[in-house]
């Protein structure tokens, strides 16, 4: 059972890692002018909800399987994901808004966020892997 939980988390985490890498690649494409803001944002906005859902699943899974430490570790990131999604102004086209992304250093902060998340997911990945092996 334990192993199943962690295996599921591991797979989920893999997906999240790939997603963060995709975010980083797309944002750096925008930085280097390979794609324009419009297509970049519409690409990324598509994946905001899957990421949110994916991460919430892991968090909830940890809660129900009573892995408190991992749950608490995941909680801030999950909260941030949800907060970010809810706080999008009504006039914006999603978390990534093409008209805003070049303003006030938003591109940089999105980039930073994606990097941090990538690091976090990698950490989680090894944690789940360790937990599986330990079982």
């Amino acid at each position, binding site marked *: 059972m334990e192993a199943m939980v962690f295996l599921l988390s591991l797979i989920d985490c893999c997906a999240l890692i790939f997603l963060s890498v995709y975010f980083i690649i797309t944002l750096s494409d925008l930085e280097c002018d390979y794609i324009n803001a*419009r297509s970049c944002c519409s690409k990324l906005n598509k994946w905001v909800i899957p990421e949110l859902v994916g991460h919430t699943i892991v968090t909830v899974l940890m809660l129900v399987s009573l892995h408190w430490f991992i749950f608490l570790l995941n909680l801030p990131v999950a909260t941030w994901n949800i907060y970010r999604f809810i706080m999008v*102004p*009504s*006039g914006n086209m999603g978390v990534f808004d*093409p008209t805003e*992304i*070049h303003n006030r*250093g938003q591109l940089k902060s999105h980039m930073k966020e994606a990097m941090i998340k990538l690091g976090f997911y990698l950490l989680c990945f090894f944690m789940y892997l360790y937990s599986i092996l330990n079982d």
Partner: protein
Amino acid sequence: MSQPGSRGATAGLQAQNGAAAASGSPYSNGPVQNALMSSQVSAGQGYDSQLPGSYPHLMPAKSLNPFSGQSNYGGSQGSAQTLNRPPVASNPVPPSLHSGPVPQTPLPASQNPAATPMPSGSFLPGANPPLPLNWQYNYPATGSQTNHFPHVAQPAVSGTTNLTRNQQYVSPGDPSLQTSFIKSGSALPLQNPPLPTSFQPGAPPGPSPAGGPPPVRGLMSQKPPPRVVPPPSFNSSINQEATPQLTNQNPKTSRSVGYAYPSLPPGYQNTAPPSATGMPPSSLNYPSGPQAFTQTPLGANHLNASMSGLSLHPEGLRVVNLLQERNMLPSTPVQPPVPNLHEDIQKLNCNPELFRCTLTSIPQTQALLNKAKLPLGLLLHPFKDLVQLPVVTSSTIVRCRSCRTYINPFVSFLDQRRWKCNLCYRVNDVPEEFMYNPLTRVYGEPHRRPEVQNATIEFMAPSEYMLRPPQPPVYLFVLDVSHNAVETGYLNSVCQSLLDNLDLLPGNTRTKIGFITFDSTVHFYSLQEGLSQPQMLIVSDIEDVFIPMPENLLVNLNESKELVQDLLKTLPQMFTKTLETQSALGPALQAAFKLMSPTGGRMSVFQTQLPTLGVGALKPREEPNQRSSAKEIHLTPSTDFYKKLALDCSGQQVAVDLFLLSGQYSDLASLGCISRYSAGSVYYYPSYHHQHNPVQVQKLQKELQRYLTRKIGFEAVMRIRCTKGLSIHTFHGNFFVRSTDLLSLPNVNPDAGYAVQMSVEESLTDTQLVSFQSALLYTSSKGERRIRVHTLCLPVVSTLNEVFLGADVQAISGLLANMAVDRSVTASLSDARDALVNAVIDSLSAYRSSVLSSQQPGLMVPFSLRLFPLFVLALLKQKSFQTGTNARLDERIFAMCQVKNQPLVHLMLTTHPSLYRVDSLSDEGALNISDRTIPQPPILQLSVEKLSRDGAFLMDAGSVLMLWVGKNCAQNFLSQVLGVQNYASIPQTMTDLPELDTPESARTIAFITWLREQRPFFPILYVIRDESPMKAAFLQNMVEDRTESALSYYEFLLHIQQQVNK
């Protein structure tokens, strides 16, 4: 003469000019001058690089004529006036310099040919016909009202100006004029040496271009023709000859005072006599020979000079205690600070009206910038109507190979064949073609090319700059015809304005026009050629709107003009009985977008209520009882529909201009997005009604007139580059930022301003100068692809004090206003207001703690920032940011749109209007512009204490002029100026001053006309008496006074002092 066989090409060219001169020249002395020209030309075709003598062309830019130095980047009254003085007074240098060959008399015809052989004859003054035809403004009727300054200073400023004017004011009907590179000014054919063909891709179709010389001709011309002796500075002789012309033939030259682009382009003046730098005025002092390299070196050696320049302005170094010296407002319009550069560089610099920086001294590091607490940014007005603009047609546009910067006056030439980019420091090769200078017709002078002599220049772009063939001008009008719209009666005004201006729409034979009307359905109009009357097609399926027929909805204006006129005449009557109250704006916009997407163009949308049907329907969100509080107001759009559509439009090169004529709340915050991201503009006429609100009707008419006839650029993009180390991080204005530094502007118009914020990414310690370049690529209404490039160069400084000394308070206030709009939208209005106040407090405390050594009591500010608290207070009381008043939400949002979209000059006027007392105008200190005398009353502080009941005061708030007449105003003023018997008989709404035959009336009207001429639109004059409803608006602009909810200026200063001294 030395090239007898090669005259042909130019001959054609000259013939054109000559013909124009013959037909159009009003100059009485024209023929004489023409004769003069020809003799000069014949004397000096090549020029002798061997003979010693003054080599004007080769003189380093250092050796400046004081005269030309003064007239550069004028804008100031002084310089423009200088231009008008008689030649003897204004330019005493040349005679001594050239041992007398240049006569001072206005008509030197008899002496000149013999004594002063001219250089290659390209700069010939006077003979040039005034071509009053700017290609954008070539309609006869617009002259006085729609575009005030394009025509103004144009005729005959000087010989050099004539030259450039030729480049700019291309006559639309004459393709050769449009394409040839630079035309010399002589009116006589067969005398000038020809331009090399390499610079005339579209060579004039005039007589026998076959004789045109090969490009190498420039080389040959260095060999002296036998008769030629060293040429004098043509510049000085031009001044000599042209100035008299100026004074008596161009009555309006100085009207450009304070506004126009410099009258003499600096690029063409470097040949001026050298005495400015103290060189003995002897022609023998100049080294002979081909003077290897004379471009002004930029950098270290100039820095010392510029530093010493600081001490020349003790006033600028003064520290001001604002609490003691309360009257800091200058009585003349505030001038932008001059960057602390060596004058040779500064004179080449971009006009601050077009391009200016908040800090004219750039801090070396981000740490220094953070310490100063001042925003670093640029304010641009890139497409401003210019009086003169050099236009270059060249098959290769020289750009840096790595950063794609256009070559500009601030690059450095390492040697003849290599130049170093001033933005990325890459060393580039000078292309062969660039070696030849078409102005002087000399080979091997790349640094004298117009590209390197003008900070503002326009290139005709070759086909590499086109993604598709240039689009035709397309104008689509989308009109609301619901019951509400018909009630306001706006259709009459709009259709009438359109009818009047149909022929004046910028365009060519390809111009297309179309109309869509909408209520709860969308109506299209087929204007197929051959139809007896326009055919209306109704699409009632607004959920999935489609285009009812593939063509004939957008028609060629020339071919279907009668049908269009027919439609415009009948349109106002067609819907008079409509009972449809719904408005399906969203579907109508979608339909219009579909109609225009194949070509792109301009969509003008007229809307009179909240859209209620279909996609994009909005709900009223305004709560009137919350108007006055700064919290919880809806400044953000409620839907992303308009933003998405705007981005679609932007992608298809469609710009949407929104005219909102609404009595009720119409959610401009959401609707405005359609214009904001598609680079359109928003016009708002609250409570428009054809009978109840004649003031708005007049305003709409005037603004429509300007809107329809002003210049327009299609499918434009703008890129702003800056020197390595600086980076742009935020953009303000109406456009879509497509990639890091590329702004997508489906349309660009001359009334739009932009702003950007920058940061110092890498330390600038190893550089002394930084440059900024904006390049605007657009398609003109004539279907030419053009690039307008502005380059600004600024010094880098390392101490906080210097940063403060170079602060440009107007630009800072403008940028802060832009930032505050963003802040109000993303955070809240009260946040934005706090941020504005904090900006003052932070910067002044930084100044106090880091710069001032002794801690004096009071509020000490650097002289450059003496108006900063005042302007910020004015911003806080501006409609966008004010609290406590019952400002309607739409009006507030409109004011915010204006902050973002207006150029700085207009923003500052609307924020802090100018107040003049006009009941006692006198000729003392008046501007004399040939036969016109324009009184210059001092600008008064915006405080009621400056008003008095027995006077009359004019407030110039940019887009409106308000004349407040006091109750006890002198009878003289009432009868002589207003033309009324007594105070009571001033009409309730009076928007015109009668032209009376009295000196008082003449002065007042001259002054008001002068004010109006300084801006492209037509501000309406309102005469206000005590009971007028406009009085509140007048008093609201009294920003130094206390209101119920806002501090007075003095209280504000005390507040700041308290915070600063904490």
